[in-house]
């Protein structure tokens, strides 16, 4: 080996190591971000309280203080847990059903371009249809229990997942497939090492959208026909002009959405460690 090439290997190493000061700056930025978020939440709560007391009126938008009191009461009498659990179950089971079906459907469509092109118009038609309008039918077919709402949720989630997974399969790096093919890898090896990992970012992105849809589906399902759940609580509170009750349920729904998203973020960190951009 020549002296020239020996020397060349060194500068490459030095530049690839992040400096300690950079790391300190990054942790300061993370802390500042957290403080900013906290400040934004406090600002909104204070603004709401002031607007309710001095401007719009409590009977229209309730107040954060009253909502906090109601939350406490509901927690003590157990109704908070009952309604939240009901809505969580509907959204979660429906999300799982939708994601599972979407993965299978997306894989089939991604692998068969011909089938995909054949049913694309119909698929886009159903996708564009407001699925909420199916809710009354699901209630007729499946009753007012968990299954009807979970099915409604699944019907909303499934298409996003399916279209994303299809796109994920289509956009797999050609070189990865060729590299495996050139080494005579089995189909199973290809799926395990190339196809499934390539699909995961697309799948996670679709689940993120799906979470919002799942909660919409669960609440709409409860509006159509239910005897408990946060959606039911909103509608029954509204019907007796109990704005505090309606807003309390909305706040809980919001927290539920945040928990879902947080869980997904943890999953993303676990599954997408190899992507440098995700950590931010």
């Amino acid at each position, binding site marked *: *080996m*020549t002296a*020239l*090439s020996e020397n*060349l*290997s060194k500068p*490459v*190493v030095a530049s*690839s190591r992040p400096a300690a000061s950079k790391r300190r700056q990054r942790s300061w930025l993370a802390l500042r971000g957290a403080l900013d978020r906290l400040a934004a939440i406090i600002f909104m709560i204070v603004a709401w309280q002031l607007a309710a007391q001095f401007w719009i009126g409590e009977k229209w938008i309730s107040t954060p203080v009253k909502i906090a009191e109601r939350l406490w009461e509901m927690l003590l009498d157990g109704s908070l847990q009952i309604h939240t659990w009901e809505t969580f179950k509907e959204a979660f089971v429906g999300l799982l059903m939708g994601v599972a079906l979407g993965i299978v459907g997306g894989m089939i469509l991604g692998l068969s371009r011909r089938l995909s092109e054949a049913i694309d118009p119909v698929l886009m038609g159903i996708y564009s249809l407001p699925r909420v309008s199916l809710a009354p039918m699901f209630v007729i077919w499946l009753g007012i229990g968990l299954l009807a709402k979970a099915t409604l949720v699944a019907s909303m989630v499934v298409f996003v997942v399916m279209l994303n997974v299809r796109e994920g399969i289509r956009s797999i*790096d050609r*070189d*990865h497939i*060729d*590299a495996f*093919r*050139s*080494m*005579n*890898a089995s189909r199973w*090896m290809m799926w395990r*090492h*190339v196809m499934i*990992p390539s699909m995961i970012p697309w799948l996670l992105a679709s689940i993120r959208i799906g979470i919002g849809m799942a909660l919409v589906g669960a609440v709409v399902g409860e509006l159509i026909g239910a005897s408990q759940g946060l959606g039911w609580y909103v509608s029954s509170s509204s019907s007796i002009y109990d704005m505090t009750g309606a807003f309390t349920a909305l706040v809980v729904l919001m927290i539920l959405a945040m928990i879902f998203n947080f869980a997904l973020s943890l999953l993303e960190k676990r599954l997408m*460690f*190899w*992507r*440098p951009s995700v950590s931010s």
Partner: protein
Amino acid sequence: MTVLEAIRTPAAVDRAGASAPAKIEVANVTLRYTRKQDQSESTALDNVSLRVGTGEFLAIVGPSGCGKSTLLKVINGLLRPSEGSVRIDGKPVENVPDGVGFVFQSDGLLPWRTAEENVAIGATLAGRSATDARQRALELLTELGVQRAIGKHPHELSGGMRKRVALARTIAYEPKLYLLDEPFSALDAQTRIHVGNRFIKTLEEIGQTVIIVTHDLEEAIALADRVIVMSAAPGRIAAEFKIDLPRPRDYYQSRFHPDFRRQQQQLWDVLQREMAGELNS
């Protein structure tokens, strides 16, 4: 270099070039394809014939888009020719044959696997058990001077390190034929010399048949026993030239060998005559 010597073949002792028994025979291969955009038909390869001896180091040079990468994929069975045939060790290539290693222009490493996991996949596909494959991966990465890559994912590695990991993966697959598709084109000049040297030393050590595709004429002369020049699309073989620089070679230093300039000049003369003929016809 014990690890590499283990997979050395007797054929490597004498790099006899084209006079050795044929490893690859490409006979009248034409490849046409239909463009997606306008459904027009294009010819990527036009009646290409070529014979590569066992243990030979062949370079294919040509302008971009001349079908040289396509030719490699045809030899590997990844693409099927419209006409003509390819034989490896006398057997016609129908699907992807065993024992052919391909190093891609992009390194083709899986971003979700660490360097040693990527290399271990090659060893697994060569029939090793999981623990054996991992052991082999660590050995090869050390051998190629990229111990630092161990435990890291491709995005944490420099371009030059990724190239060496990709070569390690291919070596782990224990091929009897190496196909390299512009392996250094994405590297800057200094890294190219460093990585190029690693490649040439390692490949000389292993001593298997190698075909390297490049658009760099000097690189081709510095590395190969024989250089084939392809014309612009549709790809045809325009000229062929034997290089007799002594081995072992050095990716960069070989260019200062007194015979290098002479050979480069001769090759250039052939090329000019070829190009002139092309313009007149």
